[in-house]
């Protein structure tokens, strides 16, 4: 098989399909998307599905608000046949010490100034929204009703269907093995199914972005770390918002199906692209979550899984165009929140590639920030 495309996108996760869709929406033609496994095989199909605007830097607030506004109308804009299951049941960020309280006050003020309708709640008000919340050791919570969760599989499929409707082509089970370049310009990619000639290649392989950048001769300051999730049996709806705590290191939501999905960060996890489950995880996460919501203690565990956080030095995404070879673009380093910002990723990468004026300040997200020192340090991540 030999093929030609104007633009080749590598990776069929949420970033890849969003970039593909926004490229076509902004006027690109002949876009081909390649995925080594099935769509959403990577972090996308393994993520916590949380969508929030409650961030601690202006840039993250702006791109997450832009993305949330998109998700609100995505069902119609993408004309999706299924239900993307965007449930705006809120995000509740727990505050358990003075330092966290100070940070949340700053965050809420910043968010409000950018049009994000977040607020600080007393423990009592928080229990009105989440009756099963144990507030004994809390000083209060931050809350934003417009945040919530979204089905990663449906959202990926919705972008993919719209991409195909606009003329895009998707090849699954197609493994990119090499990038060819001549005179400092990308000329194509080699895959297990043959060569594809393309002058523009977008690396959206994210967890595996260093590998892809590596074969193009680039070194990106990223690492991929295993993160685990555990899920319980379903029960009737009782928890509306996503519960998250930075200091207690946990997040937990009840899915539309009724199961509770929960995760945490663990610095001792491997950074070697392993996605096998970690046997010590269920006990750790159950303890953390039951402390916060004791009513969950009798729920039975169904299963656990793991995926990759692709982490950058300042916990913010990298949207970059390589200077050598020209025509090689990367979107990566989402540091655990690339699902909720995927519309911003799609639109920004499309503008960068097609030479359009920026809707969002994506120039600041170039990889050169690690040399210039203009970091985007985000204080509010799990």
């Amino acid at each position, binding site marked *: 098989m030999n093929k030609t495309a104007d633009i080749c996108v590598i990776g069929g996760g949420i970033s890849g399909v969003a970039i593909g869709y926004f490229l076509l929406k902004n006027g690109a033609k002949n876009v081909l998307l390649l995925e080594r496994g099935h769509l959403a095989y990577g972090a996308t199909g393994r993520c916590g599905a949380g969508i929030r605007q409650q961030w601690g830097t202006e840039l993250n607030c702006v791109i997450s608000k832009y993305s949330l506004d998109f998700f609100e109308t995505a069902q119609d804009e993408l004309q999706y046949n299924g239900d993307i299951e965007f449930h705006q049941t809120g995000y509740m960020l727990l505050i358990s010490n003075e330092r966290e309280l100070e940070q949340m006050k700053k965050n809420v003020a910043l968010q409000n100034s950018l049009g994000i309708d977040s607020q600080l709640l007393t423990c009592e008000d928080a229990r009105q929204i989440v009756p099963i919340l144990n507030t004994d050791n809390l000083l209060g919570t931050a809350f934003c009703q417009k945040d919530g969760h979204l089905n990663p599989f449906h959202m990926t499929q919705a972008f993919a269907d719209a991409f195909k409707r606009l003329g895009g082509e998707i090849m699954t089970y197609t493994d990119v093995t090499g990038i060819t370049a001549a005179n400092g310009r990308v000329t194509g990619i080699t895959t297990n199914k043959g060569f594809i000639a393309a002058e523009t290649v977008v690396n959206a392989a994210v967890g595996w972005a260093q590998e892809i950048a590596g074969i193009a001769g680039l070194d990106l300051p990223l690492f991929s770390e295993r993160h685990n999730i555990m899920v319980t049996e379903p029960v009737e709806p009782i928890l509306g918002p996503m519960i998250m705590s930075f200091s207690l290191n946990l997040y937990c939501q009840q899915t539309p199906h009724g199961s509770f999905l929960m995760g945490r960060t663990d610095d001792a996890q491997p950074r070697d692209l392993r996605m096998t489950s970690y046997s010590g995880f269920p006990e750790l996460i159950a303890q953390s979550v039951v402390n916060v919501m004791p009513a*969950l203690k009798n729920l039975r565990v169904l299963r656990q899984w793991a995926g990759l956080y692709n982490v950058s030095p300042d916990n913010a995404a990298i949207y970059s165009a390589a200077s050598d070879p020209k025509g090689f673009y990367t979107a990566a380093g989402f540091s655990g929140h690339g699902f909720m910002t995927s519309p911003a990723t799609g639109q920004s990468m499309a503008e960068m590639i097609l030479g359009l004026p920026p809707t969002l300040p994506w120039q600041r997200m170039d990889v050169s920030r690690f040399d210039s020192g203009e970091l985007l340090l985000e204080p509010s991540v799990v």
Partner: protein
Amino acid sequence: MYTYYIIKNSERGINLRIEAHPILDFKRGNPVSFTFDGVRVEACDNMTIAVALHAAGFKGISESMLKKRPRGLFCAIGNCSSCMMVVDGVPNVRTCLELCKDGMVVETQRGKGALI
């Protein structure tokens, strides 16, 4: 379209119990009785609830989540969720593992069960 057979609980009546077996010796325990959706069921305390109901001819003991079709005893080893019922007010009890106790109140579960 597909066809499936429903044995209505009202049509029960055949006793499925094997009373004596050439090589197995049944240790059924002491007689107890409990109620299933208000109907009195005779059993023994060494039997699981699901087995006692099955033997008494109750085939539909739960319902499917979306289409509300009847479900009966299926895996009988606590894996499949087909026999989950409300026992003494607690939902999602795997009745294929739970032994019968005198006076217990067993009910068909509607929906996924409330946490509290």
